[in-house]
């Protein structure tokens, strides 16, 4: 497999996963706000924070974060490189260069999804149409993932898609935990304490984890158990450890992976040996920060091993 192709496959699936995760976040946040007493709601700012795009947001919209601006920014602002619109366009651009590798239905589905997102943006920005719009995006992304699983050979192309998807998913899981558990709720506000469970339920729901959590943990939704579930559960597909395991499984099918696997194992051990449920606000934030830096390092090792060398890459067509 060509290095350039491996790289494009990896980014293709990262971008689709990112679009899907953003849609999940917006959807769940909108419902959460309906459950909280007016005036106490944390609003939309945490979402901008999760996607790591506060600076860009403030540049474009100033410091205020009303629903309309935030949703527009996250869904369809062409000036925001992490908006769903731009993610899907980037995915499509990457897909264009690997069309010869993928089953053609995947290109067709991605084209359809990308057109849908663009053409129905007005509906997506309206309160009434938003839910259906976001569900279409989530399901469109799941359909593509399903096509990949059910029609692709388990060769390198499949594994680079899987690695990209799982790195993005791991990254997003840590971001969601970070923002929801830290900056969202000042830990000592008594007036919101009754709503803490709701907050954690929304975290679970944004990852379609609520039902699975209830089946697995059989306890009330509480912070410590949710953290254990989202970091450590090896059966839930979006937990941090499960995504790392999945990356390890894909790497095992490739060659030249020894050093990367060693690094990955170190990261897994780090998570396994950390008592995540005991971490208080600041420690949890520092821990998440470390994990994100490690994910960046993991990405760099993969890039250095398999992708085009940077000096060749710069010689673009």
């Amino acid at each position: 497999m060509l290095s350039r192709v491996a790289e494009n496959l990896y980014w293709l699936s990262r971008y689709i996963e990112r679009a899907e995760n953003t849609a999940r976040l917006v959807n769940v946040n909108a419902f959460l706000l309906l459950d909280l007493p007016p005036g106490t709601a944390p609003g939309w700012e945490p979402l901008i924070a999760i996607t790591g795009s506060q600076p860009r947001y403030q540049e474009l919209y100033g410091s205020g974060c009303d629903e309309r601006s935030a949703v527009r920014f996250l869904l369809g602002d062409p000036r925001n490189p992490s908006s769903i619109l731009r993610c899907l366009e980037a995915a499509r651009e990457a897909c264009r260069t690997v069309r010869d590798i993928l089953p053609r239905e995947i290109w067709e589905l991605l084209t359809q999804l990308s057109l849908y997102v663009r053409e129905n943006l007005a509906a997506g920005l309206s309160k009434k149409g938003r839910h259906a719009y976001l569900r279409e995006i989530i399901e469109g992304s799941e359909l593509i993932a399903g096509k990949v699983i059910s029609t692709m050979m388990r060769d390198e192309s499949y594994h680079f898609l899987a690695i990209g998807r799982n790195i993005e998913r791991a990254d997003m899981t840590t971001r969601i935990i970070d923002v929801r558990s830290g900056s969202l709720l000042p830990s000592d506000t008594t007036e919101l304490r009754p709503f803490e469970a709701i907050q954690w339920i929304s975290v679970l729901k944004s990852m379609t984890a609520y039902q699975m959590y209830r089946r697995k943990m059989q306890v009330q939704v509480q912070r410590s158990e949710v953290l254990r579930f989202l970091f450590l559960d090896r059966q839930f597909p979006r937990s941090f450890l499960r995504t790392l395991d999945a990356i390890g499984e894909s790497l095992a099918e490739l060659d030249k992976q020894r050093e990367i696997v060693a690094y990955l194992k170190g990261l897994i051990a780090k998570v396994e040996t950390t008592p995540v449920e005991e971490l208080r606000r600041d420690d949890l934030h520092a821990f998440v920060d470390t994990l994100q830096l490690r994910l960046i390092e993991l990405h760099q090792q993969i890039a250095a091993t398999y992708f085009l060398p940077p000096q060749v890459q710069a010689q673009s067509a």
Partner: protein
Amino acid sequence: MPIDLSQYDISRAYDELLVRPNRARRHAKNLAAHLRKMDEAELAARQAAADLAIKEMGITFTVYAHAKGGTIDRAWPFDIIPRIIPKSEWDAVEAGLKQRVTALNLFIDDLYHDQKIVKDGVFPAEVLADSKNFRPQCVGVNPPLGIWAHVCGSDLVRDSDGTIYVLEDNLRVPSGVSYMLENRQVTKRVFPELFEDYAPMPVDDYPSQLYDTLAALSPRRVRNPEVVVLTPGIYNSAYFEHAYLAQQMGCQLVEGRDLFVDSGDCVQMRTIYGPQRVDVIYRRIDDLFLDPATFNPESTLGVPGLFRAWQSGKVAVANAPGAGVADDKVVYAFVPEIIRYYLGEEPGIPNVPTYRCMDKGERQYVLEHLHELVVKPANESGGYGMLMGPMSTAKERATFARLIRRSPRNYIAQPTLSISTVPTVVGDHVEPRHVDLRPFILSGRTTQVTMGGLTRVALRKGSLVVNSSQGGGSKDTWIVDEEKG
């Protein structure tokens, strides 16, 4: 209201499907019957379904938009009414094309070796001397099987008396074959019942024929030689096709930066596990961008050392560098003589009568008749830089007269043909629109011609320009065996 073919406004041109309003040619009777059964709303709905299918299948082409400083992707405009050609007629065209390409390959090989045709006074030395596409670097090179133009796309047109002419040959990087293949897929989706009355000859085997043609060129005798498609990248107007062909052939689609030439003159591609040798390159990049070490040093699309690798036989390149020498519009004017010289046969398909501006008498005629001629520059493609005499202004004609006097070798002129028409959907009814036809000819151990080819249609009323970059669309093309129904 059903589709009314009695209102079909047949012009002076030959219509491929109707003899006169409401009277279908024999091979189009079933199609006409289908149209008559269909009402206007349904016709429009079918066309809309086709447009949607094309959008969803992502069949696009890219247009240069200098004003916007970039390129835009457009859906490929497609008309649902197929153009039908009886097989008996097609057989003669196919034979004529094979003859033509065989002669052109002999001609190119001769130009890069002994130049017998020049020495024998059949082909003028000064035309060769002025050729922009003659590559001195290629002199003496022996490509595998002695073939230079492995893939040729020749444009055919039919004049008002029904005669089919070759309008030009594309021997560098002819494009359009993927649209030919996709058009058939779209027609199957939107017009399935037509296939019950007709059994058009299938076109789907092109990618495997192309693969076999390319694989036969491999310098290594291995069972599965490494064949790659070399593209300039996603901003090229034909990128869709490059990706499509690579996928259909099961080959890698590479860009210049994916390849390098090693110290042993072998071409290697950069893979996730290190370098891997390439045997055959189906290149969709023009000669001058292929290798910055040999041709244009500014090119970032090519691969330094590629020419040397090809020259030493370590890699096969199709079409071979230098094949474009026969793709020049002045050379075109000599093709009938070229066929007679190498094959001792009369051309099976005539050339459009062509005035060579390099000839004093013919130049004079051209200058005096600019208002009725089409003037073409020798080395442009895509319909750029042409003068359409009957539609030109006095100012444009003055400009061309100046250009022709300055470099007569660079221009040819042809009478304005009344090229044929095919019924085409316009809103909720059909009107005649002008078409041409580009069949593709593969040359390797054998010579093969596509069943039909790409029919391009000028969608604007009265327009003769079929190029997709200038408002053209396309149609599915059916070769139909009348004996079999």
